[in-house]
């Protein structure tokens, strides 16, 4: 039980953070480290792909919103890719659907930032 984090990006495009696995109180520090590293490197527009995430808890949500807070300080944004209704449910419960842009695929999430 772990989380796999992959980052890919092209010049002039938002960087994409692709997460695979479960994001909970144990694995979320790893996600936080990657997002923090990207922001510290000057990447302020991020797409976080949750399509291969089986599970996310409030600790994971805290990491995502913490990242959003930091990029907004630099005029950036975070868009999410998520079609899994079980994952979207927790965004509904916590009201984060109104905070994040949530898209069905990476192309749409990236395009919305351009």
């Amino acid at each position, binding site marked *: 039980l772990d989380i796999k984090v992959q980052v890919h990006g092209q010049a002039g495009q938002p960087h994409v953070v692709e997460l695979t696995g479960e994001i*909970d109180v*144990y694995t979320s520090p790893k996600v936080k480290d990657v997002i923090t590293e990207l922001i510290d490197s000057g990447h302020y527009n991020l797409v976080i792909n949750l399509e291969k995430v089986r599970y996310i*808890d409030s600790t994971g949500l805290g990491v995502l919103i913490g990242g959003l807070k930091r990029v907004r300080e630099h005029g950036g944004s975070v868009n999410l890719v998520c079609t899994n209704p079980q994952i979207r449910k927790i965004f509904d419960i916590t009201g984060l659907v109104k905070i994040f842009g949530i898209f069905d695929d990476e192309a749409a999430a990236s395009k919305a930032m351009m």
Partner: protein
Amino acid sequence: VTRTHASQAEYLGTVELRIPAKAEWVAVARLAVSAAANRLAFSFEDIEDIKLALTEACANCCRHDGASSEDAVDITFEVRADALCIKVRDHVRHAQAQESKVPLASQLRDGRTESVGLAVIQALMDTVEHRVDAHVGTELVMIKHVQV
């Protein structure tokens, strides 16, 4: 075992589990509750809700100020034909998380995940009771009924 669920439905058994109050053990509780819930006629969505609710409850136990590497979380699943009753108890002395009227998204932004976790549990489970004794610890009892 003290039975907590008042239902008259057939009692199928009780599972007791003790995990260290550490983040890396929460997944063990999640796997165990998934196995217990699969013995009942829950939908896939209901089982996912139960797993998330238990994860939030255990995560809160691990996040308490004052929790040490010696502390444990006691988890009990009481299984009946019509419901799963889950009790999560820690033994960490701490103050109760303050209820807040601030939107959950704002609480998350401020790093207040404990109260958000409780709100998520209340949204996912049918019945939730949360008791904090500053001298003994926290007990959370939550019930999910099988939809007929």
